[in-house]
């Protein structure tokens, strides 16, 4: 009896220890998030002022802003999204609608999943070999192309997943009233899956707006205002990289402020994306 009791006790104790460890693990996860965001807010907020959004990146040792970097980031992100989204949505459409059970879909899904988590610096090297080397110089176009290649797998994945969730009865109803396939896809399937597809695009924006590695040797950087797509262009992440590793205090401060801007943008986009799909699930 006493051995049974002590066995029971030891099992209970072991359980309590392991569960406590799990709680601690969750605590560690949340603490990291708090630590990083706390440091960002603490160091970044003190540098936020109007000049950040109205002045160009300064020469070493001078005060200035991040206007050209913010502009460059927005331009390249927009081009990346505009180029990448249609390709991604169409590819996802093929996989969920026309070729749902085809061999090609299985292969594309596999390759797409690999592209999705492939190191982004590899994409940078690819675009360098593809565009920068033949053109002979770094350019904003090359940067935007690199970003669009990162957009495609994200959009393909969410589009396919969301279209697969559309009930077949809806499609059959469309076909029954004589609508051809592409009309059914456009006016029934896309509409039903719209919020999911938009979520995918938002997640893609969130991903590329913080990407640094693929821009390092495609768009390079530019200390001055440039709206020429055929020339090197500044971007927020690359500017942060350059400024943070510099010995100048003003630059480091700007790097922190830029980091805060990017993080808030990215977190904001992810939260909006999440709330879009969250509402879907509740319904």
């Amino acid at each position, binding site marked *: 009896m006493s051995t049974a009791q002590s066995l029971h006790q030891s099992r209970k104790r072991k359980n309590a220890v392991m569960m406590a460890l799990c709680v601690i693990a*969750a605590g560690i996860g949340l603490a*990291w998030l708090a630590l990083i965001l706390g440091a960002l807010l603490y160091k970044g907020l003190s540098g936020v002022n109007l000049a950040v959004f109205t002045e160009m990146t300064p020469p070493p040792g001078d005060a200035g802003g991040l206007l050209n970097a913010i502009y460059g980031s927005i331009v390249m992100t927009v081009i990346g999204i505009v180029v990448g989204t249609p390709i991604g949505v*169409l590819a996802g459409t093929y996989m969920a609608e026309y070729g749902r059970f085809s061999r090609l*879909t299985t292969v594309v899904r596999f390759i797409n999943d690999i*592209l999705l988590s492939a190191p982004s610096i590899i994409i940078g090297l690819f675009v360098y070999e593809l565009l920068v080397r033949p053109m002979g110089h770094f350019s904003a176009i090359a940067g935007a192309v690199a970003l669009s290649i990162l957009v495609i797998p994200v959009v393909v994945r969410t589009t396919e997943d969301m279209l697969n969730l559309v009930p077949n009865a809806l499609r059959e109803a469309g076909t029954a009233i004589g609508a051809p396939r592409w009309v059914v896809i456009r006016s029934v399937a896309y509409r039903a899956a719209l919020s999911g597809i938009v979520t995918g695009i938002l997640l893609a924006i969130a991903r590329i707006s913080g990407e640094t590695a693929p821009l390092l040797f495609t768009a390079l950087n530019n200390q001055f205002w440039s709206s020429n797509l055929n020339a090197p262009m500044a971007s927020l992440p690359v500017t942060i*990289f350059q400024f943070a590793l510099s010995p100048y205090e003003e630059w480091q401060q700007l790097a922190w402020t830029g980091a805060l801007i990017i993080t808030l943008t990215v977190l904001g986009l992810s939260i909006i994306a999440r709330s879009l799909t969250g509402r879907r699930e509740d319904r």
Partner: protein
Amino acid sequence: MTAVSEAATSSAMRTREATVRRFAVTDMVFRAATRASAILVLVLLGGVAISLIAGSWEALSKFGFSFLTTESWNPVTENFGALAPIYGTIVTSAIAILIAVPIGIGIAVFLTELCPRPLRRPIGIAVELLAGIPSIIYGIWGLFVFAPFLQTTVQPFIISLFHGIPGLSSLFAGPPYGIGLLTSSLILAIMVLPFITSITKDVFDTVPAVLKESAYGIGCTTWEVTRRVTIPYTRVGIMGGVMLGLGRALGETMAVTFVIGNAHRISASLFAPGTTISATIANEFTEADGNLYTSSLVSLGLILFIITFIILALARYMLLRIDSRTGA
């Protein structure tokens, strides 16, 4: 009368035929466009492979297999070897995974078994938000906040703790720079933690309730159910998640570039600065002069591409196996 109505019907037929034909053509065009886009995804990955091979040809044909086994990396004498970056990449990723896996599984257990229901979603989202933070943020945080902290408090303590113990004393030999292999590993662990957590949580959710309930029914504790039912049932899926995290860690660039120290040497100490494949490319590519230098960096990229491709393919294969089982 009949002639008129016949004519009307036949013209209606004609327009209907024309419409149907038009529909068929547009449908074919749309189908072709979607198919072409799907094929483009394949072409992209093929293009990446081909361009990397083409770009690394010069270096690989000059150095041959010894590129993989040479430690020296000397731009002046144009003698390049990939051993130090490969070593750094593998060591930092391995340590990161060793740290992140137990914590990630712990959080997943917490979220599926222990967490009060109303807190489940917010905490899950918070952990996943960690995954969305751009890597450059981890880098700048690691360089300015985390590395100084390690340098002034943790590292001196560990160095004095293991001083004189054979093996450990050389593994944790100092001076405490703050930056180095261990710092990079810790940052990488934080970065891959959300991936491992969310996939582990997802596969934990695939365990049929009846399995867990029967274990609880014969009096198992929560830990015993997790250890004997949930984890064995989801082993393949967890491995897939771990591989996915490993793929991330291997290719992670910016965060590591900030805190690794970029030193092309292999040291026994984890406190010493080192380098990884991606950090080397990020640091040196734009400054590389000479075709051989550039080509050697692209070769590093090719090696990284091959390693991550294999790891990610394994990860997908394992996750597919879990999917097909729950589908059946």
